[in-house]
């Protein structure tokens, strides 16, 4: 089962109105070549799920600047002034979610859990309109799972079966979003043959991955 594809073969997967999860933390660990492709295809009305909206010229920040996103679910938008501007103009819908809650909601989506129960956000605006559940005399927020049509993952060394290793803090959201989308595409820094990766280094088993493309190093 060889999952290596050319960037051109990924092109036909992209559609307007998709919900897309993208890995990365302020651009570190974002698959830039796949972002290039979305810009090139000028996919519109994207619902973007990511930790942050990066910077205007890096990572998913470029999709915001290019007006391709209609809604973003993220924990932080402060480093990309364009996000705030489009939000204030009413053309971009922004749902802010605490970072730990956001990543755990994505995991719940990927792992078949009905939601998560966290104390984060209790007594704040984040709790508004959400169900509270009392457990052991403590109040928890019920936060709902997130899933996507497409997850764009940045991997370090990836084999033909889609087994993925990561490097440093570029790992961040990547292994989690890889569990929570209908189609999972990994942009690899380096592609190797099946069996060439030490099995104990594999973080994302290939069974989660649909396609692998070669990215920059």
């Amino acid at each position, binding site marked *: 089962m060889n999952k290596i594809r050319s960037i051109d073969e990924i092109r036909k997967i992209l559609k307007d109105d998709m919900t897309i999860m993208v890995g990365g933390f302020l651009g570190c660990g974002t698959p830039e070549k796949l972002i290039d492709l979305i810009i090139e295809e000028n996919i519109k009305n994207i619902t973007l799920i990511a930790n942050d909206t990066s910077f205007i010229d890096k990572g998913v920040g470029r999709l915001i600047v290019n007006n391709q996103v209609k809604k973003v679910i993220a924990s932080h938008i*402060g480093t990309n002034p364009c996000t705030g501007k489009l939000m204030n103009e009413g053309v971009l819908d922004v749902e802010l979610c605490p970072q*730990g809650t956001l990543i755990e909601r994505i995991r719940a989506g990927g792992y078949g859990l009905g939601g998560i129960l*966290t104390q984060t956000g209790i007594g704040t605006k984040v709790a508004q309109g959400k169900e509270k559940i009392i457990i052991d005399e403590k109040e928890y927020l019920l936060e709902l799972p997130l899933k996507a049509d497409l997850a764009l993952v940045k991997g370090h060394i990836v084999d033909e079966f889609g087994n993925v290793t990561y490097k440093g803090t570029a*790992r961040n959201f990547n292994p989690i979003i890889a569990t929570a989308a209908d189609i999972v595409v990994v942009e690899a820094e380096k592609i190797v043959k099946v069996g060439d990766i030490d099995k104990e280094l594999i973080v994302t088993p290939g069974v989660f991955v649909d396609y692998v493309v070669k990215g920059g190093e």
Partner: protein
Amino acid sequence: MIIEEGKAKEIIAKRVAKELKDGQLVNLGIGLPTLVANYIPKDINVIFQSENGMVGMGNLARGEEVDTNVTNAGGQYVTVLPEGSFFDSCMSFGIIRGGHVDVTVLGALEVDEKGNLANWIIPGKLVPGMGGAMDLVTGAKKVIVAMLHTSKGRPKIFTRCNLPLTAKEKVDLIITELGVMKVTEDGLVLNEINKDVTIDQIQSLTQAKLIIPDDIKFMEVE
């Protein structure tokens, strides 16, 4: 401002550093709190977490130390110490939410005598988002607010915060260049005061009423 800003930040960072104990896992917020790392007492070993997915974070990386895959939560290139390791965001916030972080040090827009903290939004003006702050303040065993005592001369320490909260009643200690205030059931207790200011001065710059204990001390910042 009674004390020049650069000096004030140094005082705050030095005083916060004295709160840390050997073996603790510590998360420093971006901005002023990151300065704390420069003043850790030499006889203790503190482990720094960066919520983007690392423990054992070292200094900012320079020259050949730079690895573009190793950044702090502010996006800057940093080094990792020999004992350090990397993990995904779920584990990072599991460490935070699960009470494995001993101390978190954060800045504030406002803080109040109930231990409420506001540092993520100024409605209609600035909406950066909460990032990991809400999880950190909710989950860490000890929450220290490290900030300049005032903003453009106006108090930042209130009876009740006006801005939307980051977390409810979670702050343990407020450290500014003017003093060290502990959040208690009775209100804010001024345990330490900068030797260069008077109690009246600090109270005049604080909207909340400060409780002055009999054994109030001078801030040790050397």
